């Protein structure tokens, strides 16, 4: 038995090595390089041999130490479960301390411009994740084109602000309404479709919006993008070092020294508040009939229909509300960057937001925060390894689906429990 097993393991790892050679041999081993405008092949055999050896030996070790025992690979799920339980029991305290931490974060001694920028970016993604969580997590509609609403929000904010000169606080709700209208417009025809068809159609819509932005030059300036988007002001007080004649700015009004960090801190609080509003809204709406209908629809559409829930309208509300928060986040993005172009709204952005929601555990608000910190942190730390970090990112999506298909925090609490004795 033992000997047979060893023989099998050796054979199996040799086979793995062969497959690895076939996979990595041509693509990694024969790099095509342009030389004098003609492609030539640069062999890189050393790295292929290395990868193949790692695959074969790794497979052999896995055979010996993991598959030999009959026990199942059950350890991964207990970690997530214990995190989940911990968050369930201590949930409120953790949430409050996280909020307090994020409120005092800008004034901590180690906080500098770089950290603030990352924090603002993370909060933007958290907000997008929370917005998409309404669509994916609560209503169970896989939307692969969420970035379209983000783009609609950003562009409508930018166009309103540039052409009409309206202030941030007027443009923000307008951008949200615009994005929600787009959500209804796009959602109306497609929401009858089943899960995976819906995913592909939303993806197609996302791409259509991007192509439209790229080619409608008169309105969007195409690939050049929109520049000179007005910065937000603190209730009418702009952040400027040199105010115009007779104009009051933030620092003169409060009698402070001018400091460019003031604007960054203001932006930080702005997105923090927007994100928290999104979260609060989601928590509250879950307890309303519409929120209950979303979750019921996610679990069983036919049962819902027979109980008199109108699936189309219910899904459409989820789509529109999710889109609205995407639009809010988009207008924040536009005002923060002061420059937007279709480059910022590619499919990969949608994939990142979907990954945030899925990794965190669909429907879990805390999970979104955890996975955003993890994923955006990962992307930020490996900034210099562009494609490697995306390989890790895609690989993480696959692994999570295999080992924790309901996300890191998969302990989904029922929203309502009948009051029985146990």
């Amino acid at each position, binding site marked *: 038995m033992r000997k047979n097993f060893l023989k099998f393991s050796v054979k199996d790892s040799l086979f793995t090595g062969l497959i690895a050679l076939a996979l990595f041999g041509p*693509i990694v081993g024969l790099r095509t390089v*342009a030389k004098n405008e003609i492609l030539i092949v640069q062999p890189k055999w050393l790295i292929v041999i290395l990868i193949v050896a790692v695959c074969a030996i790794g497979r052999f070790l896995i055979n010996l130490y993991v598959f030999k025992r009959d026990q199942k690979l059950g350890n991964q799920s207990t970690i997530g479960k214990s995190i989940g339980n911990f968050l369930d029991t201590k949930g409120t305290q953790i949430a409050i301390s996280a909020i307090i931490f994020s409120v005092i974060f800008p004034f901590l001694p180690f906080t500098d411009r770089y950290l603030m920028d990352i924090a603002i970016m993370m909060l933007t993604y958290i907000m997008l994740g929370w917005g998409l969580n309404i669509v994916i997590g609560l209503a169970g509609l*896989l939307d692969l084109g969420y970035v379209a609403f983000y783009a609609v929000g950003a562009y409508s904010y930018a166009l309103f602000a540039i052409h009409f000169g309206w202030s941030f606080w007027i443009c923000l709700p307008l951008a949200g309404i615009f994005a929600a209208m787009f959500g209804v417009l796009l959602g109306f025809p497609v929401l009858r*479709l089943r899960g995976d068809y819906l995913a592909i159609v939303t993806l197609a819509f996302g791409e259509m919006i991007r192509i439209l932005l790229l080619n409608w030059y008169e309105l969007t300036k195409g690939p050049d993008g929109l520049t000179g988007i007005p910065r937000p002001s603190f209730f009418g007080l702009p952040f400027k070092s040199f105010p115009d004649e007779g104009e009051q700015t933030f620092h003169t009004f409060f009698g402070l020294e001018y400091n460019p960090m003031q604007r960054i801190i203001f932006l930080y609080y702005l997105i923090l508040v927007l994100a928290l509003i999104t979260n609060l809204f989601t928590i509250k709406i879950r307890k309303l009939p519409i929120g209950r209908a979303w979750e019921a629809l996610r679990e069983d559409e036919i049962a819902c229909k027979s109980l008199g829930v109108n699936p189309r309208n219910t899904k459409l509300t989820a789509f529109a509300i999710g889109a609205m928060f995407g639009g809010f986040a988009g207008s924040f993005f536009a005002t923060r960057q002061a420059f937007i172009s279709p480059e910022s709204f590619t499919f990969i952005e949608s994939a990142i937001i979907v990954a945030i929601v899925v990794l965190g555990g669909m429907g879990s608000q805390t999970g979104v925060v955890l996975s955003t910190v993890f994923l955006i942190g990962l992307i930020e730390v490996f900034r210099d390894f562009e494609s490697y970090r995306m390989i890790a990112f*895609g690989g993480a999506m696959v692994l999570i689906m295999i080992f924790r298909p309901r996300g890191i925090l998969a302990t989904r609490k029922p929203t309502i429990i009948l009051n029985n004795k146990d």
Partner: protein
Amino acid sequence: MDLAYFLQQLINGITLGSVYGLIAIGYTMVYGIIGMINFAHGDIFMVGAFVALISFIIFALTSIALPIVLLLTLLIAMVFTACYGWTVEKLAYKPLRKSFRLAPLISALGMSIVLQNYVQAAQGARIKTLQPVIQGGFTFMEDTGFTVSLSYLQIFIVLVTIFLMAIFTILITRTALGRAQRACEQDRTMTALMGINVDRTISITFIIGSSLASVAGMMFVMYYGVIDFYIGFLAGIKAFTAAVLGGIGSIPGAMLGGLLIGLIEVFWSGYISIEYKDIAAFTVLVVVLIFFPTGFLGKPDIEKV
């Protein structure tokens, strides 16, 4: 002039349609057998194009005759790309057979990101240009002011597609493997009880789909002469549209859908607007899915409680 222009678009459309049709078969077969959209299939096509490109570059250094080069490249691309299809299925989809419905789709999305960035890391982000492999062709209707040309390459592409389709149809309708596949489509549990290795049948489905996609990749790199690591995304969506248009799950439907999508795209860019040519395919996708979800040759999908 008008007729000549139309004829030229028709020729180009059929060529492009052959490429889309070959990719669409992979989508439709996988959907038929395990009911998932293999989102990474477009990137398998891209890998196939890269393998073919590398093979062409290496053969260009030797003095082997052109027909043999073409045949060898075809085989090399099919074999190596099939390995990718097989591995992707084993790693990312097989563990998820019993998972919830959207899990394989998300996993496929992850796999697509992995493949794109892996090729980008290994081969560089720059576009790759291949010198034309097959040159020359026929021209006719020269007197009308617009010369219609039919290149040897286009003839080659269409002929190879027809040839592969013929072999493939025989494989599905006449052999034991084809019967096993059709049985798996209907009921996997019953098929397993009848003594058919379901896992192996699914693996073979992925291998066939990937090798056909690699042929499409080879033709793409020969036809356009320019590829990069991102071509799989758009080509994948268009081929998926083709599969849906023809009726997902139906193999003749995939070919028909591919031809139609190729023609729609070419005529759209020839007569309406070239900037919005990708929107044409997306619009077709949306319209078909909403009003016509079974496609031309598909079976209606009845939901049972």
